[in-house]
């Protein structure tokens, strides 16, 4: 029976612990209570081929953001990954110094090191952002320990999308949605989890956070589902160096056939699989990053298209008295040469 040695060891440990009758004083600290005794020290391999231990090398004494992905994911993983890229860009050279980003594959069979390395390159992963693979059992255990799964999944695509952010040393752990504003995420990772020992990031970034108005449904969807990879009119969503995971969408409603556009947003994986020439060209142009299926309904797709169309009109027409009001209050905070992004 496979479990027997563990149970026996467990009993022994229980007795030991019980007879010691007190926690190590270290157990009084969040970081040690949720430390080596809690997190599995399972072996993982990085996309660069390095052998790492989950606890010792990946999270110990670090501020981390972790998500679980698989590279053949047809829908939301690319969005999760793109959001991580946004966070990496905002945090800049702190990534790899006092903030560490990890994307762990839940599909080790297909996500070989080569595949992961290629994926990392496509998403411009810098030195502090590591893609990892381990055995299926070990990765499942990690997800369980992080509170990301509580029951068996039928299908990989049902996996929990949450990003886990935490400070292992202090034992603060939180779950975050990949649809969250990248600035907000970066603020929490870069400032809150560091107990504000670094002054707030918001000093530079809240000012340019895009949500400043009563958002239409289409705009809300664009900001949460599309903006990680796309811009409208060249204004970059996170900084001065466009990540360029996807084309700028200014005028896309004019240049593409409406039905094609609807279907491309609704089920891009099928369009691509059919060998559609535009889809294929985009796939190749953007380094093999495929347009994700973001799970929008037909109605939501129309809302997004409506928003894109409205933005095209707004940005290409001469400015009226009313239009500039929306962004002018903080326009001085935009970088030079960047048109307003909304």
């Amino acid at each position, binding site marked *: 029976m496979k479990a027997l040695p563990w149970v026996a060891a467990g009993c022994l440990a229980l007795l030991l612990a019980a007879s010691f009758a007190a926690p190590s004083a270290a157990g009084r600290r969040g970081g040690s209570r949720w430390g080596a005794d809690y997190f599995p020290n399972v072996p993982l391999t990085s996309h660069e081929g390095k052998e790492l231990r989950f606890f010792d090398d990946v999270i110990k004494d670090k501020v981390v953001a972790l998500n679980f992905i698989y590279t053949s994911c047809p829908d939301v993983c690319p969005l999760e990954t793109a959001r991580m890229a946004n966070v990496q860009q905002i945090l800049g050279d702190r990534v790899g110094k006092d903030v560490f980003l990890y994307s762990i594959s839940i599909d080790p069979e297909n996500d070989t090191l080569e595949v992961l390395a290629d994926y990392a390159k496509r998403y411009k992963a810098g030195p502090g952002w590591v893609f990892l693979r381990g055995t299926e059992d070990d990765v499942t255990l990690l997800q369980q320990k992080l509170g990301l799964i509580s029951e068996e999944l039928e299908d990989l695509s049902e996996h929990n999308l949450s990003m886990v952010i935490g400070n292992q040393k202090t034992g603060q752990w939180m779950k975050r949605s990949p649809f969250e504003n990248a600035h907000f995420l970066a603020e929490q990772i870069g400032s809150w989890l560091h107990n504000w020992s670094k002054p707030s990031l918001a000093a530079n970034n809240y000012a340019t956070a895009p949500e400043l108005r009563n958002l239409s449904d289409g705009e809300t969807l664009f900001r949460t589902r599309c903006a990680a990879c796309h811009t409208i009119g060249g204004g970059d969503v996170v900084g001065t160096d466009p990540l360029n995971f996807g084309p700028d969408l200014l005028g896309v409603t004019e240049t593409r056939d409406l039905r094609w556009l609807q279907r491309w947003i609704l089920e891009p994986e099928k369009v691509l699989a059919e060998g559609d020439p535009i889809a294929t060209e985009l796939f190749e142009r953007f380094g093999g990053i495929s347009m994700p299926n973001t799970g929008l309904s037909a109605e939501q797709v129309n809302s997004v298209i409506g928003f894109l169309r409205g933005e095209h009109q707004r940005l290409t027409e001469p*400015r009226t008295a009313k239009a500039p009001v929306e962004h002018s209050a903080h326009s001085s905070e935009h970088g030079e040469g960047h048109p307003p992004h909304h």
Partner: protein
Amino acid sequence: MTNIAHQLSEMSPRNFVRLRARTVLTAALASLPMLLPLAAMAKDDDSIAAQNALIALEGPVPGIIAEELPLDLIPKHPEEYAFEGGYTGTSSDAGEDINLYNLRLVPDGRDIPTGAKPSPLFGATPFDQQMLRFEEFGPVPLGAETSVLPGPDFPSPPDPESGPSSSALDSFLNQFITPSLALPHPFPTRKANDPDNGGSDENPWKPQIESFLGRPLVTPPAEGRPPGEDWAHQRFTEFFPKVYLNTLQGLARPNGGARDALQFHQYNAGEWAPGGLYHNTAGVPGTAGTTAGIQVQFHRNFPVQDPLALWTWDGTFPPKLLNVRYGEPLLMRHYNALPIDPAANFGFGLHTLSTHEHNGHNPAESDGFTQAFFFPGQFYDYRWPLALAGHDTFPAGDPKAGTPTGDPRAGASPDLGNRMIQGDWRETASSHWFHDHMLDFTAPNVYKGGAAAMNYYSSIDRGNEAVDDGVNLRLPSGTALNWGNRDYDVNLMISDKAWDEDGQLFFNIFNPNGFMGDQMLTNYGWKPYFDVRARRYRFRLLNGSVSRYFRIALVEMVSGSDGELSGPPGSNISYNRVPFHMVANDGNIMEHAVAFDGASSVAGFENRKGILPSQAIGERYDIVVDFAQFAPGTKLYMVNLLEHKNGKRPEGEIPLAQILNGDYHERSSEPADQPVPDDQSYDSDPAVTRFLEFRVHAYSGTDQSMDPANFVAGLQTMIPLPSFTQEEVDNAIHRTYEFGRSSGTDADPFTIKTSGGSAFNADPRRVSASSTKSGAEIWHLKSSSGGYAHPIHVHFEEAQILRRGGTAPPEWEKWARKDMFRLGPLNDSGSSVDIILRFREFLGTFLEHCHNTQHEDHSMLMRWDIENPGQVRVMPTPLPTWDGVGYVPSFALPTFRTGDPDGADGYAGDPLNVPDSSGLLMLSNGTPFRTFLATQHEDHATLLRWDFENPGPVRLPTPPPATGDDAGYASSIGGSPAAPEASAVAVNVPEPSTLMMLSSGAAFLTFLAARRRRDRG
């Protein structure tokens, strides 16, 4: 153990380590013989482990006794040296300490306690300790600002991992306070006391914080309330605090009796006097007439809690109660005495706080918005107006809208008068509670002790059963004090908890579905008994759990087999169910009492004798039980019937018979209450159990309290429901909120859809709905996740349930004003609840969320605002840091002001349960509501803020310039004030979509620029 722990609680962490080590090793040596057979047994399968274990014990022991060797020489685990951080380096070594039996891995297993092993009971037996009664905070009259003298600052901690010393805290709590006067320094101010924004005081822990952060703080404010006008106390002059309360959230410490003199009863009146049932607070020698010496401990057999394991109000046990009366605004100065280092938390809980008064009619700045949290060393002034809802529309003049006069303290001269106040008496509230509401950390912080009870007293519910003035309902209470007697009025906070193998409180922070404890505590005591007189009692039951629902039954134990339900085989005992009446639901006295006697009608729902309906987290039920029917010596029990397997939802009810006869618990806690030994999981839910014993004692007094049987439907009314006119119903904005793990890509975490829009998780900046002050709205709460139960809580305003599951609600909800709405699979819950509510008097930023606090933290929570009619800008969102609170812009959903696009059309059928509107919106003095409205002193619609005493800059946007990129609106925070004439056109502003939000963006930049300049300098 108790003594040692007592010493420990007074010691610094460094000493703590040492002493602990010695204790540990003594215990280890003592247990050595016991260990050997086990080691031998394990040898075949795991000889390395066994050897290592022995080496571990043999090796370092002598050195440790010398106290000098580092502790880490003792491997905690036999294979610790296999790899640093884990002992095998494979999946099997994970979480041995916390999570030896990872119950989540057991198919169909019972994840109780969540992700942990059973809580040890240290040989304790049930019902052998006296239940603690709540200790009163004891607010005292606030003196004049001119009389205030400077005093020492809030005491600071010796190091970042500790709080201030216990004695320093006790003397600080009392230094500005006598039982008759409070002269706090610094004196409370309308705007937050922030030196950057007109305040005068800095965080007194500044040097310690700077040293911990490793960077300078320039002017960290003393008060954590967001600065400026937006979070200033609304209508401060009008509702200026008359009474004051100083408290702190602090590390567990022994009670020093600091509040003894502040108890209304002074341990010298009624049952609190010597010889009374409740004079001795803990039922042990030394605690007669005082709480001094009471430890933070769930049972005397269990270890005293580590200072970092529990963070309670004052840092002490018993749990605390705030007694207040209507018409007497209160200011609670809440100090944060938690460690500066967030890691010093015993593994759960965050040291930043925000306190929510559930469900007070309070302005937003004192409501405990989740993103208005404050830091160690700071205080936050919560000012609760204690005004009846409808204050602005119902003039004083009806004695039912009133408040008791007189001094409530024992020995005060008799004064049973009643002062009439403004407001709708049908909005009178009774049983509230307040608790932490920290963003993402509410569950651990409340679990860790951040919950207190709050009783509202009024002319109707005055806490003196003898007063027969035609207004007082005379609920069981007592007669010794003018008002606020608690002799026969008992708060019960019931919650499940778990503790680790050392008996220290445990919480699994990685539990997305909800956290389950395996042991039931009442008022923080494990399975206590409670002495009662043979007369009527009022019990105020509060479910203070994180994720557990209850269904509570009351039974009488009888000798022999004559009872209707038998005891365990061979026990020669049996049980009878005991009927009782529910008189208040969610703390609000109902229109009619509901008898749980198995006979009355309850509108299609089952009325069962002696069994309450489901009670979700945060729900309160006030019941009246008549013990006069029992002979002295009789024992009764409260029993929890609702079984959980995990935190997602209650599994279902276990028949009472099976719990009492022992069938349900094959080998767990009932009736022997033995812990499950080396087992992988419980076979049954150990919290489905008898958890509280009542012991009946003779009563020689006269029970003058009302008989609730005279107040059931068809007989007398208690507090009729506030009504809505047909016009209000017809014109109501409808809003639909769907709680779930929604379809589409937002599969996880928990989400809320508003008015048919997209599903969102929590973002404190997002305004999902804005209701207009004085408007009525109909809200449709729906659950789209069948496998989960979601108890929904709406802040600020209680509501009436129009429909539950599309049909009439049961009797106990039909007559009720509620703030908790259960959604989920139970037969008394259902997948939808339709409610009607209205918003009055106060404005600002409030919340609506799932009160399974783990769901709330992950992140089933949304923000809604109350706005003035015609308001254009949206309240900005506070962003607290050590340095001070800044603001970031808020944003809103497209439907936030309009509600459901299809309005009432989306709501099929006629509303049910709307009380007859004929005449009910007349004032009690006969004045028609609308006539009265027109005569009110202030037309709120012309102001965007509420500062009656000082309107200040009118908070309206300046009209946009005709052209140019610099167009925009002046900021309301630090920006230029708008032209005064703009105020006259407030209601005619252009549509919100182009206008809102911009103002605060600029303000925030101003704030940040100032901070940056300062940081550089």
